[in-house]
């Protein structure tokens, strides 16, 4: 019994010494980042490779949520909340609704996959692009934010309503037009 406790003690001591040797919070941060980035990539692959388009939609929603977790992990609270609210919620629902609009008896092969050569070509091209972008990320010094973002909403409000008024109002027109267009295309498709 005492021996076992001694082992545990030793293990805890070892963990603490490791924690002192390395910067644990940043290690955890890196771990969280790689976890969610990996999951996001995995689910993104699912969107492409799953045969059933409903499963693809589910996978896409999971990707959205993983991206939201990535935002949260870098303290971009507002972005994370918006990502979950708009993408994880509304866009996901819209995609599923759009799938249900299509006429199909069986969803088993609704997301057909291309042949091997197309896959290989796409893999090569996107791999090269990924390599190039990784090189860019490594080689260039990025300007980081002067201080942690914290609560971003008030800062966003200041920017949106003073500096970027014009894009803000144009965005309202953009939303309006997108809604009108979507309504009339959907209704037109139904009526004809």
């Amino acid at each position, binding site marked *: 019994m005492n021996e076992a406790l001694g082992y545990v003690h030793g293990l805890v001591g070892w963990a603490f010494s490791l924690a002192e040797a390395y910067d644990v*919070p940043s290690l*955890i*941060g890196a771990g*969280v980042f790689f976890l969610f980035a990996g999951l996001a990539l995995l689910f993104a692959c699912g969107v492409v490779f799953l045969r059933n388009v409903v499963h693809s939609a589910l996978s896409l929603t999971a990707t959205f949520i993983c991206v939201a977790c990535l935002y*949260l*992990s870098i*303290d971009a609270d*507002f972005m994370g909340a*918006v990502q979950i*609210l*708009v993408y994880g*919620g*509304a*866009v996901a*629902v*819209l995609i599923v*609704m*759009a799938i*249900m*609009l*299509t*006429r*199909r*008896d*069986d*969803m088993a092969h609704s997301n057909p996959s291309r042949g091997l050569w197309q896959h290989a070509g796409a893999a090569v091209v996107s791999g090269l692009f990924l390599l190039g972008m990784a090189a860019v990320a490594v080689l260039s010094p990025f300007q980081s934010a002067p201080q942690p973002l914290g609560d971003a*909403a*008030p800062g*966003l*409000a*200041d920017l*949106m*309503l*003073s500096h970027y*008024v014009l894009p*803000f*109002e144009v*965005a*309202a*027109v953009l*939303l*309006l037009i*997108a*809604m*009108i267009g*979507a*309504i*009339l295309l*959907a*209704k037109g*498709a*139904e009526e004809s």
Partner: protein
Amino acid sequence: MGEYGGLGLFFLVALIFPVSALIPAFLLQPRQPTKEKRIPYECGVDTVGKTYVQYRVGYFLYALVFIVFDVETVFLYPWAVRFGHLGLFALIEMFIFIAILAVGLGYAWKKGALSWK
């Protein structure tokens, strides 16, 4: 990071509990599938027709109008947080923003995107 760590832990625990209950069930269950057993369970009544049917466009239009106003909320929220400091000009801007989208709501209403026929 810290607060979300707690949240993450919470989710992790929430995940472990059902999974740890499901795994023994999965391992212990007797497997005797019959055709009857494999049909979807629908309140004990036999299923009729195909599982996937074509939905009416009305659902889609509802979702569509919802998403537009969902995005509008995203714009409204920072303004509301900062309302006290922003002053009259921001208020007018916001009213223009809302007015433009209200025209969209009027459009959706008049064109019957909100009616359930």
